[in-house]
């Protein structure tokens, strides 16, 4: 399913943070595949957009990166969450859950109810 840009824009950061938290560390392609798999291919976006997003998160000290050997034997840049990133994820998760709850309540409204 293709989501509108606006909808995806608001949640892409939390998706990346959450997935990094789950994986502990991952390189770009690995992360992208994990997002697609875990979301049942619901979240698919232009793959190149992942990297600038990761740079921005790194710039904010939410994410750190390190070049390491991947299982394939090739060197890849692995990303992982920092303490700040973990804190941000907790905050954003709470925020997002509240948002989803609110949305659910609104969408549950029915004229006949």
């Amino acid at each position, binding site marked *: 399913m293709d989501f509108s840009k606006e909808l995806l824009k608001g949640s892409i*950061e939390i998706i990346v943070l959450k997935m990094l938290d789950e994986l502990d560390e991952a*390189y*770009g*392609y*690995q992360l*992208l*595949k994990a997002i697609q798999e875990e979301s049942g291919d619901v979240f698919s976006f*232009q*793959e*190149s*957009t992942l*990297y*600038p*997003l990761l*740079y*921005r998160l*790194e*710039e*904010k*000290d939410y994410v750190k990166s390190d070049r390491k050997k991947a299982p*394939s034997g*090739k060197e*890849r*840049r692995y990303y992982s969450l920092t303490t*700040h990133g973990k*804190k*941000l994820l*907790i*905050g*954003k998760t*709470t*925020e997002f859950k509240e948002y989803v709850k609110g949305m659910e309540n609104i969408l549950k409204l029915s004229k006949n109810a």
Partner: protein
Amino acid sequence: MRKEDFLRDLKRKLPDDKYKKRFLEELDEHIEDALSDQEWKSKVLEESALKRLGDPHFIYIYYQVIMHNKRWYLYAEIFFWSLISLLVYTPTLASTALIDEPENLFIKAVIWTLSLTGSVGLYYLFYTFAYSRLKKLHAFQESLQRLLLNMTGYFIPMIFFIGWMAGAYLLIDADKRQDLFYAPMGLINLLIGFATAYHVSKQSQSSPWIERIGALFILVFFSLFLIYPIAPMVLRKLSFLPMVLLGEVKTYWLLGLLFMGLLLYSAYDLVRYLRNRKSTPTPWIQGIIFLYMLFIFFVPHGTEDPIMGTKPVWEVEAHNITDDLEGLQIQPFFNMIQYITDSRDGLRGFEYQIELRGESFVLRQDGIEPKEWNIININAVTEYELTSIDPDPRPVLESDYALPSSMTCVQADYEQELREQERLADMPLVLGGETHCTEFYYKDQLLFSSTEIVFINNVLVSPDEEWILLSVAYSDVYLVELK
């Protein structure tokens, strides 16, 4: 399109910054991973992999938006407003200070420092306004703060350096050489600023450690250098604020309110952060501003006050110093260090505190028992309308004070006059303010030491040392009797 063409196209389009190389490298690896992925083993795999990455032009636009464009727009706006604030602020302070003291080179020197540093407050306010107008760009808040911090770390040292070098230049022949101390300090500050700027320029993003070091640096140096010229003006301890609010210091009510505004705003931001630490970025800038403003308001300071008066430098011949005379050197309402040149002991420092108690006040001085003084007559008078302690007072006539003075009026800016009157050194002393002083004689008794530009805290000692005349805060004159 082949991978090489794709990457070449992108390489050409992307701006030269730190991430460019890394981005291209990771995209290359990404394509490589996609191609080697089981799922992609088909003849159109390369094309599909590239398609999934996106069109190079789209990538370029996205990259620009995320990494550059909007941020620079914000920075440009901040810079613009800071320039405007500087232009507005400088003539305001300069005109006021020059009206008060047109000939004082020191004040002229300080004006520039005040003007430039004062603009930092407005700079911050305008930044806040600019940001609030663009608050939808929430994602850039941290990077904006970071850059602001870096910019501040770069500009502030330059501002202080220029300010104090100008001050040093103007004061080179004046009797305030201790101020030259600040010039090398300014130089150190400048070097640190340049080092910070260099470091930042080598990294398009700075690490949080740099932010923290920057914050500490600004806190220490900013406070050290900014407090010197501004603090005494604002300080007057807590009495300054009511004065400002009541309009007694009309010229500076804006400045006072600005400081209070900054203090409250920063406090509000900090409280907001403390209440919601998890999702709110640490407000480093607000923390710095808050601490600095606290510093301004509450740290006692006793150096030159270019706006509301200048600390007199009392210089008295050693053999004329008595306990009473030392006790009579008063600076009401704020702590200060006074220096008395003693030919035997060199420079000695004294700190005085005044505590008002209704009709009297207590003077506390280091090393001397507290003395209680009784205010027997309080007259708010203008410069030439004095009321004498004479039982049958009449207005002071010009002929009364036209008589030659038998007192020595000692002032920092009055060295020539002092030397001329050294022959009278065995007479009782009169201590005056720091500007030109005129002694008023009335019925053979010296009543008042007036200054051309009224400075606060002038003290006149009667020949019999039984009373003093104290000029406080521009217009109030107190006749004070020693109990």
